[in-house]
């Protein structure tokens, strides 16, 4: 089975020296991959490389259409669109953007909102939804886009713990439906809930299942001393100084 996302010796940058080097990993359909690393470690750069927005060398192969799910505070909250309007934007990927949305497109948007559990909020203004709900609406847009590869930029930042748990559950459901999710995150503890962990710090530090990757040695190399480690039994539990902005 060919993987949906495959990188081999990928390097990427913004014109000068590459800011991310030696990335080699493959993710299959059905896998949810969390991408860890410090700010400036290359998480965003990897996504932009996969989206084809910046210069790369090496191999980056995508087996299907790709959707990008931004942090919701990067979107325009003070804008007159409902959850349904946003989901419907995904239909632009199917061409015919010059026509008003057709019945089948509206149907797809409705179904996608239902899939992410927001059918009841379809006509609520996007800006009035909670952080977790907005993230779901953007996922619905990706579903309407019919992309099997989803790149999510810190979807759990600023989302309360209960909503975050529910969202991770949704990630797994979506992955189980034959998709690949790459989820960038600062949450090392939560990382064990994903199928695979990719650690980046200017270069690829590790890639593999959580039990292999989430160990002291790897995390120290990933965060280079920015991290406080607490041992509890065999498990390495880590907390990080947060640099949220």
């Amino acid at each position, binding site marked *: 089975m060919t993987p949906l996302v495959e990188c081999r010796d990928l390097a990427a940058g913004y014109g000068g020296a590459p800011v991310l080097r030696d990335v080699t990993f493959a993710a299959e359909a059905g896998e949810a991959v969390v991408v860890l690393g410090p700010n400036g470690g290359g998480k965003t750069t990897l996504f932009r490389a996969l989206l084809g927005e910046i210069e790369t060398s090496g191999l980056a192969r995508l087996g299907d259409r790709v959707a990008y799910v*931004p942090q919701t505070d990067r979107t325009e909250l003070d804008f007159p669109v409902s959850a349904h309007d946003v989901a419907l934007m995904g239909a632009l990927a199917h061409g015919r953007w010059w026509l008003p949305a057709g019945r089948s497109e509206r149907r797809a948007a409705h179904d996608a909102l239902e899939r992410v559990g927001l059918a009841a909020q379809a006509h609520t203004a996007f800006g009035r939804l909670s952080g977790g709900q907005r993230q779901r609406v953007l996922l619905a847009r990706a579903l309407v886009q019919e992309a099997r590869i989803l790149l999510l930029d810190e979807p759990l930042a600023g989302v309360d713990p209960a909503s975050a748990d529910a969202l991770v559950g949704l990630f797994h459901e979506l992955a189980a439906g034959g998709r690949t999710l790459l989820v960038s995150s600062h949450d090392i503890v939560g990382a064990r809930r994903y199928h695979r962990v990719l650690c980046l710090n200017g270069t690829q530090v590790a890639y593999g299942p959580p039990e292999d990757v989430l160990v002291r040695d790897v995390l120290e190399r990933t965060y280079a001393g920015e991290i406080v480690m607490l041992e509890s039994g065999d498990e390495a539990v880590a907390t990080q100084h947060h640099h949220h902005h």
Partner: protein
Amino acid sequence: MLEPLQSGIGRHALADVILLGAIAGAVGFWVVSYGLSYGAESLSHGLLPGLVGAALIGAPLVSGALAGAVATALLIAIAARDERIGFEVATAVAVTAMLGLGALLALAPSTPQRLAELLFGDPLSVTNGDIALAAGLALVGGAILVVLQRPFAALVFDPVGTPALGVAPGAVRTALALLLAAVVCVAVQSLGSLLALAAIVAPPLAVRRHVHSTAQAVGAGAAVGALAGIVGIYASFKLDMAAGAAVALALCAAAAVGSASPARRREPRRARAG
């Protein structure tokens, strides 16, 4: 009450401001949403030397406006290339120089005294040709707005994720910039270099708290623009004041009223039932 309709001048002025107000108000929603308000101001102010030049050689004002707008846009683009300067300062430099050039040309001792008309406009002096131009712009511009409605909304809502939907950001922004330039060039004929801005940025401010979709915002903006035009022309007849300024004041008043009045809140449809 029907005063403006009884004179040819009044009918011409009404037709012109209705067409112009509608298309400028509709395009204005996207102009403001894309953060181009300052760009609209700079284009309309910066094209003054083009207007003065056209008046000097007796060419159609719209051709002068076009030349002035292109020159301003080029100057801004050149100045803004330097990162330390940035778009806002670059715009201020370009507009100041162009306004100065326009005034220098217009205030030369041998130039006819038309500067006030070029700065503040005069809807009462529009010709059949001007109205045809405004009608053409309203028609073509309106069609473009309908066709580009979905890409416009998607890109401004999420500039980062939308390119992955297959929408080319450069093409969308260029289309909007061209549309804005066309509206400015036609609007300066009746509202003048200094007041054309009101037709573009006032309607979106008036409607923004009261709409629930982008289509509503564009449609309501067009309606406010056209209505303010009518009110302005009637006011200028009734109160015997400068028509261009009257239209601009009506537009600004609409913006003030629209921003101050409480937003109509729409609850989610099913939330109340469930």
